[in-house]
């Protein structure tokens, strides 16, 4: 009888890929190839840290929310995002164990700019309509990509996503309610949403990442598809986003700020003007409109509160 310990790395790899192909869930303590582990660490720590960094642009509107009910709604929404961050970082921490790393290291990687946060959270918010649009369309976009990973081969991530996606649906509804109120409001309020859409359009296209490596030199989509972490490509997601949201955007009387956008009946795809991928490359180098400000805020609050974490550690010890 050949025990797992006696198996060669090649055998283990074959067995692992069989499990992946059979749709089995891989758990934290299971053997996994280094490439799989590293792909997951990158994906999940980036996802987790993006939830946390993503709280910052919306948080700007929490104290300013324009009614008591909206204040309650957006506080709950931003809190959920922090909760998602917590959930995901715990999943990432388990994967990091063999390397002797923990959450502190993830934070340091963010501060050193080795770990990046999602490109959409580098953008500036200017009005209350941005807070609504983030909930409606950014969370809407996130639902599309995350729903695809609900069946991810890595069990702990798939389970975390079950809960996250359920909450994201509420977020999209929260955002849509803000947008609907503005759309039914005064001319000034309507103008706020159009301006927000114009401001966020390119960021929404970039949200899904480049269609292929040739655009920016690298994309993580190949390994994630090979290991059945996700099934669809960046472009598939972008097309799904158009399918779902273009009709809704138009029905609110808004104009998409891309005159070339149209559905090609013959090819069955949406044709659109490419966003500025040079700008995208800058954003993912943390050179976006608010990249450094948000990083500084996170760095600074982490350092400024170091005494609290030290004090808690002293109590535990």
């Amino acid at each position, binding site marked *: 009888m050949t025990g797992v310990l006696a198996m060669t790395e090649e055998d283990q790899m074959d067995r692992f890929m069989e499990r992946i192909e059979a749709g089995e869930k891989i758990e934290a303590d299971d053997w996994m190839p280094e490439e799989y582990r590293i792909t997951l660490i990158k994906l999940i720590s980036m996802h987790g840290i993006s939830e946390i960094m993503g709280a910052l642009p919306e948080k700007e509107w929490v104290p*300013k929310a324009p009614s*008591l*009910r909206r204040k309650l709604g957006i506080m709950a929404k*931003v*809190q959920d995002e922090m909760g998602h961050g917590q959930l995901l970082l715990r999943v990432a921490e388990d994967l990091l164990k063999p390397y002797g790393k923990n959450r502190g290291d993830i934070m340091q990687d963010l501060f050193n700019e080795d770990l990046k946060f999602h490109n959409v959270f580098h953008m500036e918010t200017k009005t209350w309509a941005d807070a609504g649009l983030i909930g409606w369309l950014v969370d809407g976009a996130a639902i599309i990509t995350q729903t695809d990973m609900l069946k991810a081969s890595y069990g702990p991530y798939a389970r975390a996503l079950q809960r996250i996606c359920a909450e994201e649906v509420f977020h999209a509804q929260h955002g849509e309610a803000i947008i609907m109120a503005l759309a039914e409001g005064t001319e000034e309020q309507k103008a706020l949403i159009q301006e927000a859409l114009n401001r966020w359009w390119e960021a929404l296209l970039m949200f899904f990442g480049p269609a292929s490596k040739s655009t920016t030199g690298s994309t993580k989509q190949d390994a994630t598809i090979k290991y059945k972490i996700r099934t669809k490509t960046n472009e598939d997601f972008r097309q799904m986003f158009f399918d779902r949201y273009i009709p809704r955007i138009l029905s609110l009387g808004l104009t998409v700020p891309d005159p070339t956008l149209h559905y090609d009946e013959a090819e069955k795809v949406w044709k659109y003007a490419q966003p500025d991928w040079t700008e995208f490359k800058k954003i993912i180098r943390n050179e976006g409109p608010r990249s450094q400000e948000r990083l500084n805020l996170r760095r600074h609050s982490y350092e400024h509160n170091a005494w609290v974490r030290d004090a808690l550690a002293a*109590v535990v010890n």
Partner: protein
Amino acid sequence: MSNVENGMSKAYKNAVTALLFQLADDELLYAFRASEWLGLAPHIEEDVASSSIAQDSMGHAVMYYKLLEDLGVGSEDDLAHLRPANERKNSILTERVNGEGYYMETPQYDWAYHVVRSYFYTQAKKAKVDSLCQSSYEPLVEAAMKIRMELYYHRLHWETWFKQLLSSTDVAKEKMQQAIELVMEDFGDMFSFGKDKQAIEENNLLCQEEALKASWKASIAPVFAKLQIEVPEIPETPHLNGRNGEHTKDLESALATLSEVYRIDPAAGW
């Protein structure tokens, strides 16, 4: 003109209104300051937990403003967003900034101050809410019953922080002691009813100021005894009395922020 409306004398209604403004404004400002911490708490779990408390407090503010709306005083959002600083009845402690800097930039918020303010305020709220459960005004009794259930967890949370930070490193102890001093300087109007004292007390809306103070002291005394520190004295006379509309500049900046969007068009739906 009748002095009885909805079976309520005008004097009684005025007393209820005065008290509701004090309660509602306290909660709004406390929740506002707590919400500025969102995303910036010392660790992620705490961010989630204290955000929950901030939401509950905002929810309590909504309950009190709604009771004012029901009395025909004005719409809840107008009352929360549009009244100028000199008409606000919150205690000075609730309006104080969290530390140096604006929340939109890179603020230097003081976690020790947040813990002490939250712990002392929550215990004061508990003293009031317990008494409100016996109020002569039935809608307030109902609100207080609901609030009391959530308050249990808030007290537990802040008491844990208070005890832990005061039994830890020298740095933490020193920061906490400084925070206690700062918080107590502003505690003089916490249990004050201001110029409405007689009306509120005589109508049995809430127990007397002195009874509230005693209840607060009794609730924190065991924790202080365990930590071997003295229960701080509540200032006899407040340096400013928020219950009479006296406030610091901190309130003006808070109001400007929390009403910035609403003021664009208070008549519009948001």
